[in-house]
């Protein structure tokens, strides 16, 4: 039977808010975050009543006991808490220290809480948010499979991959079902990071044409935050264990993202182009495994999701 109690770490983050909302439609949710605040409902949604906040800093040793007290054999533990540096490329020792403390040691603490939880098993399952960055730069041009080479080129990707390694060690030792979801860039209302899609929407919301570097031919996967939350709900309900690519399944070039931003803003013409000497590569994951074994089906089409994000963006106070 699918779990009816959920504990979510990183619950106030962009993805966390949507995950908490989706799971609260299925059962009671403990929403753990460093601040201990009650997560805001996603844009356009109404708060669900069965969500209880919990202050939890996975970078602190005290988090093990605090989290353990919330767990049990009927609980699905959804571990989203992690640190994402403002830019993932070219991080230095200071960022690496924070990535190790949160993404690696934090994940070990969360898993230890599950291990020490009184039940047998300690929890019903663990769902872990991983990243496409575990792959690094793909070797070929075929859609990337879960079994393809892992060669992270960022500290973020390396620390998230270590979380996967320890998740699998935990699953082996504790005989507990685990699912790691390798997610691409997540967009949708609430997304504030500095990367292609939100940058393009910020430009068009100011009435400016988006700017792309180079040809814009590089492929980059996307997923709407609501679909990311759906993937978590599928992982919780499924019987499968293992690692799954999750994305919207479409091929998106950087140029097509810029054009979509102009389309949803009703702008005509072409994006601005700047020369680029950055290495060019295509990244696109196959999501067949998630479709087949988790029953995951993405629902949000890119232009619809971007239109929604632009509407949200226009309601934000100017920065």
């Amino acid at each position, binding site marked *: 039977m699918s779990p009816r109690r959920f504990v979510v770490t990183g619950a106030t983050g962009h993805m966390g808010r949507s995950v908490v909302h989706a799971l609260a439609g299925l059962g009671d949710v403990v929403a753990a975050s460093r601040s201990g605040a009650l997560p805001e409902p996603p844009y356009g949604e109404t708060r669900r009543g069965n969500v209880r906040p919990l202050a939890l800093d996975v970078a602190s040793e005290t988090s093990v006991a605090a989290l353990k007290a919330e767990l049990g054999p009927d609980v699905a533990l959804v571990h989203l808490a992690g640190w994402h540096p403002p830019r993932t490329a070219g991080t230095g*020792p200071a960022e690496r220290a924070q990535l190790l403390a949160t993404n*690696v040691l934090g994940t070990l603490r969360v898993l230890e809480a599950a*291990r020490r939880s009184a039940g047998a098993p300690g929890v019903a399952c663990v769902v872990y948010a991983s990243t496409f960055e575990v792959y690094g730069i793909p070797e070929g041009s075929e859609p990337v499979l879960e079994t393809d080479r*892992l060669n*992270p*080129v960022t500290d973020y990707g390396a620390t998230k991959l*270590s979380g996967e*390694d320890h998740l*699998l060690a935990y699953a082996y*030792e504790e005989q507990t079902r685990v699912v790691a979801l390798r997610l691409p860039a997540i967009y949708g209302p609430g997304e504030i990071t500095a990367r292609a899609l939100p940058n393009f929407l910020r430009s068009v919301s100011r009435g400016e044409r988006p700017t792309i570097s180079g040809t814009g031919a590089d492929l980059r996967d996307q997923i709407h935050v609501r679909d990311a939350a759906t993937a978590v709900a599928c992982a919780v309900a499924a019987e499968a264990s293992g690692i799954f690519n999750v994305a919207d399944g479409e091929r998106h070039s950087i140029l097509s993202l810029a054009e979509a931003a102009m389309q949803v803003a009703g702008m005509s013409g072409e994006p601005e182009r700047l020369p680029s000497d950055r290495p060019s590569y295509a990244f696109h994951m196959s999501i067949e495994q998630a479709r087949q074994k988790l029953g995951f089906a993405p629902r949000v089409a890119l232009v619809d999701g971007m239109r929604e994000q632009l509407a949200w963006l226009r309601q934000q106070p100017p920065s």
Partner: protein
Amino acid sequence: MEQRILVTGSQGFVGKHLRAALSARGIGMLGADVPGSGAELPVDLASPEFDAPALARATGPVHGVIHLAARITRGSSVDAQARTNLVTIADAPLRIWEAYHEAHGATHLVYCSTFKTYGPASVQPIDPEKPPQRPDPHSYGSAKALAERLLRIAATRLGSGFAVVRPTCIYGPGQHLHNAIPVFLRACLDGKSPTVFGNGQARRDDVLASDLAYCLLEASLRRTVGAFHAGGERGRSILEVAELCCRAAERLGGPTGLKPVLDAGRPPKWWLDQSFDISSTKRALDYVPTPLLEGLVQEAEWISAGAQPETSIAHAPVRSR
């Protein structure tokens, strides 16, 4: 200036063999290990107070750094001990390497990793230059895999090179007596047949600790860049290894004609049935592995002399080219 190499984990099993190898070459060793271990530099690399820049200032410039420090934990992969060990294995070497770069300019690093960075599904024989994918499902191999990945990223940032040496199962005088080879040898020396679990056909590869020390030291002295296996002559079935343990005990005047017995009722431990390509180690480091029987005789001598850790080096001739 006298040539000196910083060695973390200097007081451990491999560290002792490395010290002997350095001493034989007239190279100074700056050993860093936990307080109370007798190391020149008493530091706890897992402590939040560990200050890598202070270590780099205290030693001055060195020829290179060899990172061995790690514990082989056998408990849970996610408990407090695993977390502490992960800091020693995957955080400390990066901080030390960066601190030496900052204080003294480009400094070569040799990172002692493990064959447990390879999970069970790897293609055989394993090419060391292909980055390990999924480690053995335990914290030890997982932490070393993380260290290797972070070092590759840091190397690009520092514009500097490093060597990874991945030993197979390390044996030899001074090793932990709970492991398979010393258990076999002790049985043979006591006149008993060694017991092999399962059908004995799982392959294993054993590297003598002094051979590993040779590889680590040569990689440092030559400032080698890349990933290398420190392995034995070839992989052998565990039954074959047990038979060679019987022959090693015989050489020391033990009982003749002993043969291993199989205990099919007890499943073999989790085992990675793997073989390792050591051709690049032979080429780059002029490495010639010690024949397994010869290494087993060294270890049998050490065990029959009382198996004291401090006497291990006396039973292990230093490897040289």
